[in-house]
């Protein structure tokens, strides 16, 4: 996913925002079912790869769509692609990067 903001955030701030978006919408019980994990975070390109269980992917996508702030700064999170493997995701991210220049 990409972080859409004028600011650059650290991985910790980013994950705090993702967790709080999920907890805000689904509560701690819902958040515990996602098995959310940060796989990669590129601060410069504002790109992140997170891992969640397949069953919880739509829950997480919904929560991410409603996220509005990271570290108290206005930001939005856009999912670029979803895949079962990192290899396939890397391909898609390359494709996305070449398209968006």
């Amino acid at each position, binding site marked *: 996913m990409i972080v859409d903001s004028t600011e650059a955030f650290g991985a910790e701030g980013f994950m705090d925002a993702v967790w709080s978006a999920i907890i805000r919408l689904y509560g701690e019980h819902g958040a515990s079912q996602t098995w959310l994990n940060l796989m990669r975070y590129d601060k410069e390109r504002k790109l992140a790869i997170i891992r969640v269980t397949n069953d919880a992917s739509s829950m997480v*996508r919904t929560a991410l769509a409603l996220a509005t702030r990271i570290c108290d700064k206005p930001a939005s999170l856009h*999912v670029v692609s979803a895949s079962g493997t990192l290899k396939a995701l890397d391909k898609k991210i390359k494709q996305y990067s070449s398209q968006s220049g």
Partner: protein
Amino acid sequence: MRRVCCDLHLRSNIRELEQTANLVRKAADLGYHLVAVTFPSDACERETRQVKSACIEVGIDVATRVDLQPNTPNELIRDLRKLRRRFEIICVLCRSKNVSRQAAKDRRVDLLNFPSTDFRGRFFDLAEAELASNSLTSLEIDMEPLLTSETWKRIRLLSSLRRETSIAEDYDVPIVVSSGASDERSMRKPTEVAIATSIFGLEKRLALDTVSKNPAGIIKRNREKLDSSFVAPGIRVLRRGKNC
């Protein structure tokens, strides 16, 4: 077939062309093909043309929209008579029950929008849905209040939206989900908007229709009606002249 993704509610100040162009540019980046920009009811032809040409530069189709906030049904009828042929989309922000009933049964109204903070002011019930269903009026849901509201206000809003979408589905009232955005940060991709509607109980196919088929259908229908060759539904002028 590729879906035409639409956002029918961009709330920019049209007198600030740069801001409007930025919003439209963002919509294009996010994957929208068509947006509707809200104009004040007293906007002149020149302002409409300026905004449209700024949007064409961005490479996205733009429709004109006006939001009416009448206090009485008579005021609504008067506004509709005056504005219907000037704008492609007419949305009524329903502040009272009388106005919302009149708006729902009037074929000239495209969208019904209800206040997101005043929960007693959301009049989309069974009777309203039945009237809207007969007159092809759609229920509009804005995303921005969902993004900005907090705690119990968001909970109440979600409950209201869940009830209203369920009623709309039962009565075949089309639902249109728009951003209602006045700044770029409040805009989301069409797929994100569609997936966010799952929290008020819309299934995936219907959710995608709310950002594509339903709004695109309204624009198509209204553009046909506003075309100079339109006479009545199914009847249009093909050729003018003495030899016809």
